[in-house]
């Protein structure tokens, strides 16, 4: 074991891990975080706490992570390189670990163009892969980027993201390999709707033995409505929603669409369970945390293992 992370323990014990997501509120509303957390208590092994997702200002992922920790959940602290330089990131990592956070996800972040502060500077002092290297050096070598020794090294279980659906496809496995070489312990993928393409990507991953060096959690998202399906298909960069999914959402009346979205999600999990190298699932129920329990339960992933 590299860390005390509960997620690491679940994965190391060979269980299919389950993570979910909590987007912090756009205001100083700690109760909102606790409310979202309550839906996920005992349902998932760790809860991703997004860091100014879609480049919109929100409560800091660090603070929201701590709030979830106080509620007895295991926060998975997300950190994007867009908003902070390496001094600020290292400081926050020390702070997070001091407050009991031991699992994190290293990202570059959505471009500010998409958010509510398009006039802000994109920092990008380092990129996501260099962030992984930095966190690993802090943990394993106990050193800062500047070379000085850390008194009390933060033992973070290090995650990274992968999008099998972005272009150029042939770089997608190579980029994963770079993230793993940099020190990623686990990976959470972009939402999978096109399972065929994901399988093709996983073949490449397994052919290089990458699934043995790192835990890969397959990302899934329940679609709320036909509109949401269409939006993700056409508007979200790097998303691959096949036409069959859109058609299937369109084939049921509006009031049945949420249920259909959940059915699709569960079927996707069932199919993904059979794919070699999948070590768990990351369920991104955006502003729909109350449905995570149903999904996890119907997918046969409850109760969560006690490790």
């Amino acid at each position, binding site marked *: 074991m590299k860390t005390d992370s509960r997620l690491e323990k679940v994965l190391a014990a060979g269980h299919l891990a389950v993570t979910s997501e909590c987007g912090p509120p756009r205001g100083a509303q700690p109760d909102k975080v606790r409310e979202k957390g309550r839906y996920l208590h005992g349902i998932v092994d760790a809860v991703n706490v997004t860091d100014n997702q879609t480049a919109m200002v929100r409560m800091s992922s660090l603070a929201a992570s701590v709030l979830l920790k106080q509620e007895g959940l295991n926060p998975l602290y997300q950190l994007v*390189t*867009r908003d902070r330089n*390496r001094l600020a990131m290292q400081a926050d990592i020390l702070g997070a670990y001091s407050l009991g956070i031991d699992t994190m996800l290293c990202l*570059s*972040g*959505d*471009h500010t*163009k998409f958010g509510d502060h398009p006039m802000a500077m*994109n920092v*990008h*002092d*380092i*990129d*996501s*892969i*260099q962030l992984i*290297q*930095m966190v690993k050096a802090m943990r394993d070598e106990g050193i800062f*980027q500047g070379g000085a020794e850390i008194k009390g090294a933060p033992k973070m279980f290090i995650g990274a*993201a*992968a*999008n099998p*659906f*972005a*272009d*150029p496809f*042939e*770089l997608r496995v*190579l*980029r994963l*390999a*770079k993230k793993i*070489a*940099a020190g990623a312990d686990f990976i959470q993928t*972009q939402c999978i709707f096109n399972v065929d393409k994901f399988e093709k990507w996983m073949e490449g991953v397994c052919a290089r033995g990458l699934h043995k060096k790192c835990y890969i959690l397959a990302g899934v998202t329940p679609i709320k409505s036909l509109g949401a399906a269409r939006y993700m298909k056409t508007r979200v*960069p*790097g998303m691959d929603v096949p036409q069959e999914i859109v058609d299937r959402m369109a084939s049921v009346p509006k009031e049945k669409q949420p249920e259909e979205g959940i059915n699709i999600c569960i079927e996707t999990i069932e199919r993904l369970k059979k794919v070699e190298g999948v070590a768990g699932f990351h369920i991104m129920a955006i502003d729909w945390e109350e449905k995570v329990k149903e999904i996890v339960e119907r997918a046969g992933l409850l109760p969560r293992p006690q490790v």
Partner: protein
Amino acid sequence: MITAERKPLEELIEYVRPFKRILLLGCNECVTVCAAGGRKEVGLLASGLHMALLKSGSTIEIREHTLERQCDPEYVEELVPMIDGVDAIMSMACGCGVQELARRFKGKPVFPAVNTKFMGASERQGVWAERCQGCGDCLLGKTGGICPIARCAKQLMNGPCGGSTGGHCEIGDDVDCAWALIWERLKELGQEERFVEIMPAKDWRPGGGSGPRKIIREDLAE
């Protein structure tokens, strides 16, 4: 070259309104090539300022002149005989030119007529695109001659983000994904292995991280 674009006329009118005589000064270098501040643009702007001020009932004398290079003291020296006759200078050069004028002519207000944009190349007639951010530690040799610092919207140094689609950047279809370009080029060169190497975190000191930069060539410096 350094590229620039003329500022909105409205802003420039407010700069010159208090003055009777101004010197409108072009530059024969980069801003001429990118059609922002050469002799012709000086003429166009002088005419536009004249008309806009005339409409509001005021007149101004605009002396037009274009220097070979505004960012070099020896060329700026040429202006000495003209300076006493004007109340202010409006420069159509990049920010370097404007500052050189301000340094040389202590008592004269100096105003920029253009917004200095970026170091770029001409993609085709009338189109200029950013190519370099002057990071001070060129890595083009490792990236197939395409710069991820200047051309990736997130300055990613280790490959394309999850938003790269069909060769385009996630910020817009009119922006190429720098890493898609780099990968194509590395393949053409048979240098795919370069992609696998992790590029470590960049030292930004040569890129301005340690304050304003200066080059001193001992053999040339006086």
